Structure formats: C-alpha cells, structure tokens
C-alpha cells in the first residue's frame, strides 16, 4: 500500500518535472559545448567552491528564496507582486540599521539588523495575507499596492541614499562568505528549501494548502483555518523575500532601494510556473520551482556564453518560457505529437472530470 502510494506520487512528480528538467539539461549541454566541462564542474580556489555553475546557484539563491515563497502563495490560488519591493525593504532596513550603529562589526548590531529586517518583512507579508484573507481583496490587487508603495518605503528608510556597509562587517558574510567551501547563500537557500519541504510535506500543511487553493469554501466547511493558513503563507513569502533582500544586500554590502530586486517577482512567478505549479492553485511542486529558478539563472549565462549580446536576455528568456509553457500544455502536446488525430475545435473543459462521472 505504502509502496503503491509512493510510486504514484513519484510518477506524478516525475511527469510534472520531466519537461523543465529536459530544458535545463539542454541549457547545460549547450553551455558545456561552448565552454567545456568547467561549466558544470566546480573547483576549489582560495578555500571556496567556484566555477560557472556554482556561481549561477549562488546568484540564484535570492530568486530561489522568493520563488519558494511564491510557490506556496500560488498554491493557495494567490499571487504576490510585492516581493521585489519587500526585497528592497528588507535590504534597506538591514543596511540602514547597520550603518546607523557605531561598530559595524558588532555581532549584536548585525543580529539586531537582521532581526528587525526579517520581522518587518514578515509583518508586510502578513499584511498582504490579511488583505487577501480577511478583506477579501484579490491577491493581485492587494499586493499591487505594496508593489507601488514598497519601494517608496525602502527609500524612506534609506533617505534615498544607498547605505554602504563596511566590507569588514560580518554582515557581508551572509552574501559573500562560505561554509565548508560552499557559499553561504547556497546554504541558506538550501536550508530554506529543506525547511519548506519538511514544513509542507512532513506536516499536513502542504495538503491543507492544496485544499485551500483547490477549493476555499470546501476547506472552510471542512473546518480548516483557511484564513489563518492564507495569512501564514503570505507571511512566509514576505519573510523569504526579506531574507533574499538580506542576502542580496550582504552580497553587495549595500542596499539599493530603487533597483534591488527589480522585477524579481516576474522571474519568481516564471520559475514557479516552469516548475509545474499551476497559477490556478492547488498542487504545488517546490522541487519544480527550484529547477525553474536554475533554468532562469542558467539562461543568463548561456546567452553570454554563446556570444549573444545583452539585448538578447529578454528575447531568449521569452522564447524559453514559451517553449516550457507550451510543452506543459497537454493540448499542445496532443496537437504536435499526434498530428493525425483530429481534435474537436472546441476543447472540452476538463475531460478528465467527465470520465467516470458521466
């Protein structure tokens, strides 16, 4: 029984992940063909792991954090457009707190800065969740408000300046340091990934989330605290965005309220969708999201490696996303791979639903 359950789950996951994994492998293969095996094979220099692929992972860490939070939000049928602004707020609060301190290397100060930033971003996330769950405002609108105002808040925190933390401050280790030769951002992202996987799959949170996203009213009548869960999920998403902002700020040693994490929400949503989670809510795939993030990260390097100019960034990203989106569409696959079987002009809505019911 248990085995059967695991097998089916594995299959379901495998089916969802097949296309993104294929696309990622193609991208990696292209890079290896152009720059050699060094692309994928890391080496240790100066006591830290480096290499093109490790760099991609390290740089993708903030996006991964945000995309993971976004996955949970999307699972509840929501969306969070404010993560880019929250990223900037988290970065701004942390850096400003540190440069306002006397000794920028004091552990207490850094701890306080990180704590204040995370609490503030969690509060912002909870605010978004409250707007959605308790005021019944559509998620896209509720979070649009903070998307507009958020960067203003971040600038207010920094007074429009770009606070620069001393390079000697241990705060920068969050973005630049390494533990056991592996860069800290990768550790943080991996830890959050593992924590979220455990949180959602080892407890019942994942199932309850999927229930709330799949059918909010049924979930309410089944006695699920759906409002509480919704707030929790937006809170986690805000927290992830704030943490991503901290990593970004630590990496640079400064916080740019205007440009930090600009349009990262779109990349995060793309990563979630590439990873197989539907924007309509319900089932979610954290591993798929991680793969989606790596695809997006690898894409940027691929463009430079194959010698295309920077202007291709957007175009190539669009094309890759289009391909993944189409490959994930059963209708498209049927159309392409079974050209001889005519389909009805009007696609029957959810044929699967009809199978046994009628």
């Amino acid at each position: 029984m248990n085995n059967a359950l695991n097998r089916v789950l594995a299959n379901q996951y495998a089916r969802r992940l097949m296309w993104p994994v294929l696309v990622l492998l193609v991208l990696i293969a292209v890079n290896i063909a152009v720059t050699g095996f060094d692309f994928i094979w890391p080496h240790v220099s100066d006591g830290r792991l480096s290499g093109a692929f490790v760099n991609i992972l390290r740089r993708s860490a903030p996006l991964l954090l945000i995309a993971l939070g976004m996955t949970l939000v999307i699972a509840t049928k929501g969306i969070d457009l404010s993560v880019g602004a929250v990223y900037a707020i988290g970065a701004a609060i942390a850096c400003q707190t540190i440069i306002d301190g006397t000794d920028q290397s004091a552990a207490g100060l850094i701890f306080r800065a990180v704590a204040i930033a995370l609490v503030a971003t969690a509060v912002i996330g909870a605010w978004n969740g409250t707007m959605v769950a308790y005021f019944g405002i559509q998620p896209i609108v509720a979070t649009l408000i903070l998307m507009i105002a958020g960067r203003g808040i971040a600038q207010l925190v920094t007074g429009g300046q770009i606070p620069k933390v001393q390079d000697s401050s241990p705060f920068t280790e969050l973005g630049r340091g390494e533990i056991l030769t592996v860069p800290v951002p990768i550790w943080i992202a991996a830890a959050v990934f593992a924590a979220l996987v455990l949180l959602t799959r080892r407890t019942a949170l994942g199932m309850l989330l999927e229930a709330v996203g799949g059918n909010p009213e049924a979930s309410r009548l089944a006695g699920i605290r759906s409002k509480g869960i919704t707030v929790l999920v937006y809170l986690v998403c805000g927290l992830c965005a704030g943490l991503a902002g901290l990593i970004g700020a630590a990496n640079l040693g400064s916080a740019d309220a205007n440009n930090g994490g600009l349009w990262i929400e779109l990349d995060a949503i793309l990563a979630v969708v590439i990873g197989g989670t539907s924007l309509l809510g319900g089932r979610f795939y954290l591993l798929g999201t991680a793969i989606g993030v790596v695809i997006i990260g690898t894409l940027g390097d691929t463009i430079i490696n194959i010698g295309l100019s920077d202007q291709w960034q957007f175009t190539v990203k669009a094309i890759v996303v289009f391909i993944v989106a189409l490959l994930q569409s059963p209708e498209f696959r049927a159309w392409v791979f079974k050209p001889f079987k005519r389909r009805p002009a009007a696609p029957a809505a959810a044929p699967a639903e009809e199978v046994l019911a009628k």
Partner: protein
Amino acid sequence: MSAALVSMTGIVKDFTGVRALDGVDFTLRPGEIHAVMGENGAGKSTLIKVLTGVHAHDAGEILLDGKPVRFNSPGAAQAAGIATVYQEVNLTENLSVAENLLAGREPRLGPFINFRAMRRKAKALLDDLGIDLNVAAPLSSYSIAMQQLVAIARAVDIDAKVLILDEPTSSLDRDEVAVLLGLMRRLAAERGTAMVFISHFLEQVYDICDRMTVLRNGKLVGEWATADLPESELIGHMLGREAAALEQLERSVAGHEVADEAPLLSAKGLGRKGSIAPYDLDVRRGEVVGLAGLLGSGRTETVRLIAGADRADSGSLSFDGAKVAGHNPRTAAARGIAFCPENRKTEGLVGDLTVAENMILAMQAARGWARTIPQSQRNRVVAEFIDKLGIRPGDPDMPVKNLSGGNQQKVLLARWMLIEPKLLILDEPTRGIDVGAKADIQKLVAELSGEGMAVLFVSAELDEVTRLSDRIAVLRDRELISVLESEADMTTERIVDTIVAGGGSE
C-alpha cells in the same frame, strides 16, 4: 411509426483510456418524448454531449433527418435545431434575463443590438410560457429554479426540432415541474418537437415519456415503449440486478428506538435575517430528523446555521449540554457536528486532491497542520472506509474529481464519519446520484442512527424523508412551521397538507 428524426448508431466515445460509450444506438422520432435512463456513469450525459457537439465521438454515425451530421460545437448543434437544457443552470448570471434568453440571437439594428426589441421579445416569450419575470433584471437576482425555467425558455425559443432536457427538474418544486411538463406536452403536440428527457424522478418519467432507452456501463440495454416497461423492471434493467433486492434494502431501514433523554442539540430562536426566520429545533441522540419543504423554503439555511457555515444573528444554540458560542465550521467539527453540504463539487470536495486526502481532510483540520496523521493510521482508515462504503474505484490515490457523483458523496460521508461526530448533518446527500448509491447511503444513515448518532437530514424527495426520519420538521417560506412527530403523520400527504395549511394560516 414515423421515420427517425435522430438516429445514432454504434456510437463509441473514449476518454483517455475509459470507454464511456460502447457502440450505443439511439433513435428519436418526431413529436415523441423519449427518456434515456441509467445509473450515473451509464453514459447518458456523454450520449447527450456527443449529440450536441460538446464531445466528438470516436466511432459511429449520427443521422439528423436522414443526413449524416457531426457537430463540433454546441453552437453548430443549435444551428441545426438541437437545443439542450442541462441539470446545472448553464446561463451567465451577470447578464440580464433577456440577454440570457436571446444571447447569440439578439434582435439587431444593423450591427447593433436592439435592447428594446430584445426585452419585448423576451417578455413575450416568457409570457407565452406562463412565467412572469422582470427581463431587464440580472439573472442572478432570481432563484435557481427560476433560472432553470429561463434556461428552458431559451431552449424552447431556439425553435428546436430536438429539445434535450438533462435532469431539468432536479431543482424545481412541484408547481414548477407541473409547468415544465405541461410545456413539454404542448411542444410535442403543437410543434411536433421531439424531446429527450433525462430524470431521476421515475414518477415524472412515467408521467410524460412515450419511450425509454436504457443504458448501463456505457452499453445499450434496450429500448421500450413506456407502457411496456413496469417500474420494477426498469430499475432492474438500470441496475443490472433484480428489483427485489432493492426493496429489501428499503425495508431494512425503518424502525428503531430513540433514546428518551435530554436533546443533544437544541436551537432556540435561531435565525438569520433574510435567510431563515427564528426557529426552535431539538435533535436527540440516535434520532433522524428530516427537514421537508419546497425548494427555497429555508431547509439548507436552517442546517447551515446549526453547522456553523453561516452566522446566526438571533437565538441560541446548545449542544451536548453546553451553550455554543463563536460557532463556525471548525468549532462545530470540534464539538462533534459534521456537515455534508448540498453542493458536493463547490462546497464539499477538493477535486484535485486524492480520495484519501479528501477523506482525512476534516480529521487533519481538527488536529491542526502540525500534527500529521501517521501514515499507517491514515492508510488503515482510508482502506477501511473505502471498503465499508463500497467506494469504486477503490484507489485511494485517484483524484476525487474522477469519481462518479455517488462515490464522491461517499467520500464526503467518509470524511465526516472519520471524526466520529455526535451529530451528522446531511444536505441533499442523495441528489443526482444513482439508485444503488442512494440505497447505500440511506442504509448507512439508518445504521449510524442505530449506533446512537443523531442525524439531521435534508431532502427534496418526500418519500426519502418519510422513510428515514423519526421526526420531520416542515418548512415553508423561510419559516419552520411544524414538527411532525407521530408515526401517523409521517406520510408524504401529511407533509404536503402541512405545507399548504402553513400557507393558509398567514
């Protein structure tokens, strides 16, 4: 006998691996009313959807007036004179009644819709059918029953040669059913419209249909003239077993002792403005209380207040000896009140989740997200209830949306039985499900109450209510008007009398 108007032969339809229709033949003659009968999953709806262009068939032939046709959209079928009314109202609530009636066929001035002419035409159309509505009002301002009549009026107006009615009466009350059946007779007689009628109400089928085609498991069982097929034989054909077995089930249900003690649940002056007038209601352990009344009489509203699904704005509720405060579905479940809502799909199940997940949802919700049900316990209880309730297919990992209505209802019941409630509230648990599952559920209700569980039971079918209930609360116009207690009062006739009398007293 006149030549066939519609002739379907050897129709085959597959849905990714499942054969929904397997070589079905169907013949419809001009001016006849023809019932398609079968359990849920027999293929009735698929047959209709193939005929109306919603689904494309994989093999077979459809002749309309002797000419082969193949519709690739409902629009194309309508254009060829085949109109359909579905069980669930398929109109758009945000548009006005007139627009819904005439959408796609609006009277126009040049390229523009002539709203004045449209309203006039819509008004005339409804007047003709004996329906009086404000055609300019949004459809959403009318009850579901009225919306269904509008849907029928729309189909009639298409001037169809063939009118298909798929469970049109499931949300209508008696008067409305009478209007509909009268309308059908008139259309058949005056316009020679051929009609396909699908209904679970055998009484209506026998009342109006000329012929019947019976399907079972996607295959054709046969076609009979109504007069040649007694009810018991029909049921036998539909179920594929002897009708006697069914009757035995029904008999086993009635009669058991109710513990004579303080009520488990006691509502005093419970009410909600605009929804249900304040009412008093007691339910004791081991008792089945039925709620009877016409559609819109406030049955669902009554039980939703008790279940905590809606907030009461007057009165008080006590349960199990304690006063209930801060009532909502979660606290209700914690107290031992389980509620199976009326609409399985939108309020009950989460379609994407598996059978197992849907079953343990309430149990898990009660424990909170942090305390997961251990895997072994979960597998055990799920397997136990799949077996106990006879859920088919018995795969705990299948998404619940792929199950038939009856099996979905059983999953929902299992969800609540898992938390071992003291009071089980069932709102229309047998609506739209096949005869076999219906009997299973009725039997289960009787068993549970026998074990000491209190049950509140809402059903549109008075037969079912009288058969199962120890007491019956009768509602009318959003008011609880009477509670029938004695054995002698528990008849369909008595309930109808009560409803009529309740109206007279006002």
